[in-house]
């Protein structure tokens, strides 16, 4: 299997990602670019967590947006209505999601293949319906405002300027730095998990669950564990997303959003942490890129998604790597 990348290789990949994130502010032209980049980083971190479940453990979730939404709504509701500060609110959301995932994980993960997808889909839609219907708490379909993120009384708003060590930095830049940092932490945790004994057990589950069970891997426990971890990833990032965007609606819990998240994983390259980041980036950029097509926008979106998956079924990054590897292998022979 190709997961046998050396420690060294994975460190180089990690450094490359960090370099890209540091370099981006020098390429981006205006605050709108920063705005999109920040959101990409937050969603990418969510998808890195989802990929642990889908890409490595091979369990397809069609309801992950629900966990993202629970995190986001916990932050929104607890800070604006119950006087919580953002970090405890975020923590409360994450704990709530972890407990929910733990309770539901066992019966859901007993299911196989499409039945698992079906159950996660059902769960996601039920949560979306509750958020939509309980307007007294959630603001209903018209959404709810979220106060800006604040840490120890210091508010971080994209609209403010901040004096830090003699430099004036915009809130937009600071939010980008925070989001980029979150993405790096998310990747670092995910990579460590993948290289740990748990990760090896998970890959065994993906390869063949029966075989894994025969050699003594407690498959259900590992699957439940990774389900909880990926749900918590989604919840925490949902909280950050809510504070960043300042206003959320039940759409973030919708089936459609769940589909978007899973599409990012598959588009970028399942089981490739850096691939799914690319997937998230491209899928979030695509609507912005297609605005010139106007009436053809939806058609183009579908067409590009379809063609990419037909011609690169392994996802973007793994396909590029494959081409690169082939090119490298061939080049010494052609050299004189």
């Amino acid at each position: 299997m190709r997961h046998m990348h050396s420690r060294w290789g994975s460190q180089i990949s990690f450094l490359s990602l960090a370099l890209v994130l540091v370099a981006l502010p020098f390429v981006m032209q205006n605050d709108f670019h920063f705005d999109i980049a920040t959101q990409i980083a937050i969603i990418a971190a969510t998808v890195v967590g989802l990929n642990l479940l889908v890409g490595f453990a091979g369990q397809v979730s069609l309801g992950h947006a629900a966990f993202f939404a629970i995190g986001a709504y916990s932050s929104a509701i607890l800070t604006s209505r119950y006087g919580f500060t953002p970090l405890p609110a975020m923590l409360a959301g994450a704990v709530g999601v972890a407990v929910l995932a733990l309770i539901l994980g066992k019966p859901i993960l007993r299911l196989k293949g499409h039945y698992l997808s079906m159950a996660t889909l059902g769960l996601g839609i039920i949560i979306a319906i509750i958020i939509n219907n309980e307007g007294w708490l959630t603001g209903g379909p018209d959404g709810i405002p979220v106060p800006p993120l604040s840490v120890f009384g210091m508010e971080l708003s994209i609209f403010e300027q901040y004096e830090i060590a003699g430099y004036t930095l915009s809130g937009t830049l600071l939010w980008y730095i925070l989001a980029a940092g979150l993405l790096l932490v998310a990747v670092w945790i995910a990579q460590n998990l993948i290289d740990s004994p748990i990760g090896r057990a998970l890959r065994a589950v993906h390869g063949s669950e029966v075989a894994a069970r025969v050699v003594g891997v407690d498959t259900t426990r590992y699957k439940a564990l990774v389900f909880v971890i990926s749900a918590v990833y989604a919840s925490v990032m949902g909280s950050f997303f809510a504070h960043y965007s300042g206003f959320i609606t039940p759409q973030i819990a919708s089936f459609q959003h769940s589909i978007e998240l899973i599409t990012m994983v598959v588009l970028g390259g399942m089981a490739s942490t850096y691939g799914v980041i690319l997937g998230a980036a491209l899928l979030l950029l695509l609507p912005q890129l297609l605005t010139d097509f106007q009436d053809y926008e939806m058609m183009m979106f579908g067409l590009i998604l379809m063609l990419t998956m037909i011609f690169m079924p392994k996802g973007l990054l793994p396909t590029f790597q494959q081409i690169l590897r082939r090119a490298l292998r061939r080049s010494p022979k052609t050299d004189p």
Partner: protein
Amino acid sequence: MLAEFLQYLFSGITTGAIYALVALGFTLVYNASHVINFAQGEFLMIGGMATVSLLALGIPLPLAIFMAILLAGILGILLQRLAIAPAKHADVITLIIITIGASIFLRGLAQLIWGKELHALPSFSSTESLHVGGAVMYTQSLWVLGIATVIVLALVVFFKYTLMGKAILATSMNKRAAQLVGIRIQWVLMIAFMLAATLGAVAGVAIAPISFTTYDIGIMLGLKGFVAAAIGGLGSGVGAVVGGLLLGIAETMTAGYISSEYKDAVAFLLILLILFFMPRGLFGSRVAERV
């Protein structure tokens, strides 16, 4: 009391029959290829919308319906040939994303051709309503039920008595073995997609006089059809029909007796419960997991 119950039952069975037809489409494709075709709902839309626009051209209703269904069948074949076949070595989840891409594409195309307005289709018979035991029933509901019954019977005959039907069944049970006895898998897949698209279009035309039709009507009906198929146990024809009817009736009964706000949630709760206690749905096959 009885009249009220009958009223809920009538509308439940009508929507349920539509769900069942959509679910049968999912089942056919799933059996032949193990793909969940998320573009299935779009064939409903194409059936309804194409009929509306053909009707506007002055083509009589029966011919318009026939042409619309034919169009959907051709699109089903194209979907299989152009989108699914080239990616035959892909993971199942990749194939699912391809069908999602296809459904967005078809919806975008429909929106370009037909616009975003709602359209009405006339009822198939001239009288609109019938009174039965104090409750009222659309005559169109009878059409829906009649069409669904004929289709289910036709499918039974198809799978039991025709070579092609048997080939599809054989492929769904064991692809390798089917290939060895000379069944051309690609041909089987094409037929399965075509049949599924046709079923979807029939459902779309049949429901349009009751529910109207528009470019995005396939999203929700497609999802409900998938849910019905899963309740019944993916891959079981009986399951799809039972699942569809069960879902439709559960929805209206909940809206009628418990809470209209949570009727959809109840439907999905039903799925969770069924799956928790019967992990392969009501009629799912109990094949051992392959190592």
